[in-house]
């Protein structure tokens, strides 16, 4: 019996070896290492110096500009509800199963496979002050030009718009799949009761999509707080008004080699992310209970 157990264990070890090596090397060890590193001052070259909580303390000083970066990070949360609303709206339209739905579906799903870099380049062009399509449209309707790429506020708005353009396709797919799972009988029964479109949507569709709301909300928050590539590409590396926490991690770690401070920043970002997604999770659970 002991022999069989030992053999089973060895088999399991064989199956797990490549997987667990990857997990240890590229997930668990880095987590522990960066946690440790956040208490040290280290420039990659000299001997690390233990500095206790100094890296975290440094964030609190105004010279670190962290409050501004945190503000920019939180600004991008606006992307999450926009993506969810747009994703849900498009999914509902597709779910009407009109003629030509397949074509529309193909169009709506496309952005999910596009690389963020070319999309950001295309959007940089759309948002160009002189030659951009968007300002062209604004001028056509009599409004003034907006300095999308240079104004500290509009750069965030522009990047958010791009993120919604690309990211809501993900929501469309998830909501569309979730809508398929709602049994038609529920709608038929409520139709017998004389319910119109809005009550059906409000009382049946929305509550039954709760798992999709939760999933898209949490992944959306995590994604929005980690927005990096579009900022890097559209501002050519200077970030300007879109300088968020993850951009600061990038600058400190890979340009200034302040590995300890960068790790402390990354963990603080994780903390913010954890609080916000947990809060949303609790909120979503409460909502679905009373719906």
């Amino acid at each position, binding site marked *: 019996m002991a022999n069989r157990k030992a053999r*089973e*264990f060895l*088999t*399991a070890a064989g*199956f797990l070896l*490549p*997987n*667990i090596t*990857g997990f240890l090397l*590229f*997930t*668990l060890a*880095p*987590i522990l290492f*960066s946690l440790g*590193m956040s208490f040290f001052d280290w420039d*990659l070259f000299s001997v690390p110096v233990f500095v206790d909580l100094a890296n975290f303390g440094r964030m609190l000083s105004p010279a670190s500009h962290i409050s501004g970066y945190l503000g920019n990070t939180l600004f991008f949360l606006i992307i999450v509800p926009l993506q969810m609303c747009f994703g849900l*709206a498009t999914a509902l*339209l597709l779910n*009407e199963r009109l003629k030509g739905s397949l074509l*529309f579906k193909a*169009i709506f*799903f*496309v952005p999910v*496979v*596009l*690389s*963020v*870099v*070319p*999309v950001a*380049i*295309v959007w*940089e*062009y*759309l948002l160009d002050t*002189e*030659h951009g*399509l968007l300002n062209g449209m604004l001028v056509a309707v009599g409004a003034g030009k907006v300095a999308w790429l240079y104004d500290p506020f509009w750069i965030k708005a522009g990047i958010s718009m791009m993120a919604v*353009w690309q990211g809501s396709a*993900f929501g469309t*797919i*998830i909501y569309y*799949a*979730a809508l398929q799972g709602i049994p038609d009988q529920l709608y038929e029964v409520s*139709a017998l009761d004389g319910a119109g479109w809005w009550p059906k949507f409000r009382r049946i569709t929305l509550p039954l999509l709760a*798992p999709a709301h939760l*999933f898209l909300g949490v992944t959306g928050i995590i994604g929005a*707080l980690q927005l*990096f*590539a579009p900022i890097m590409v559209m501002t050519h590396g200077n970030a300007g008004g879109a300088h968020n926490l*993850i951009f600061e*991690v*990038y600058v400190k770690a*890979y340009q200034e080699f302040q*590995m300890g401070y*960068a*790790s402390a920043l990354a963990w603080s970002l*994780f903390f913010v*992310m954890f609080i916000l997604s947990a809060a949303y999770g609790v909120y979503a659970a409460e909502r679905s209970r009373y719906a």
Partner: protein
Amino acid sequence: MKRSGIATTVCYLLLAACSAWYILPFCWALVTSVKQPGMVFDGRWLPYTRSNTISVDDRETEMRIVEERGDRFLVRLSGTGELREVPRADVERVSPDWRNYRDAWTIVPFGRYFLNSFFISLCITIGQLITCSLGGYAFSRLTFPGRDLIFLLYLATLMIPGPVLTVPIYVLMREYHLLNTYEGAILPGLFSAYGTFLLRQFFSTIPRELEDAARIDGAGRFGVYLRIILPLSGPALAALATFVFIGSWNDYFWPSIVLTDPDKLTLPVGLAHLNDMYVFQYGRLMAGSMISMAPALLIYLLFQRFVTRGVVMTGLKG
């Protein structure tokens, strides 16, 4: 469900509006990419090409545009120096100009970037299929001490954001002199807790009886994995493969940090360099963007089913 005519019309209008929101930026970029250099900012929705000849008495004569006068042009014929006013249609035609593509392709080594991206994404995809399926099988079918605890640990790490991981991985890669190598770009991608989780969930839905029957016939664990579990998991493996491939093909953050040698850059990183080198040269930039979006679009059109299924699997059930 019955729908009134008005409701149907409204639905179609909304669908058209959403399509426009998705398609217009794309069309605008495409049109810009085939505009003649110098005509990029003419603000028109069609690519006009200006010729430098004009037909005079049925003979093509070289000319130079002197002035635009509304919908007519004032041109100077190069032979006689004569000034003429000609209609716009004589000088401009709608026709795509592929020069931007040629320029983009020769300014930066796009061919090389393609190969790099393809090689790196392929290695990562194959690697993840192997490690995640082996691990997923162990977590779903084998019993060993600490199994559920380890699996829980895997799940817990899904929440950890990228930058927490990349700083130490960068240090590790530097320690082993793997910065600026393909290995450095590939190795961290060979494993994913997400993929392991995904395949474990799928394997758990395969009836145990099939496995027991094979075991009675004398098959070992590895035989069962290879001959029963894997063949029955085609859709899940295809979904994971498509998803991982597109994900690493599009990845920007890690490759941009680990790869610096111009010969080793991946497509997104190389394209971002082009963008920094030729700021405001939108004709070339749009051409470069189109070139780099084409493969993902092609994969999407060919494997649309797997892509969307992959999104749903990693999403709702994952």
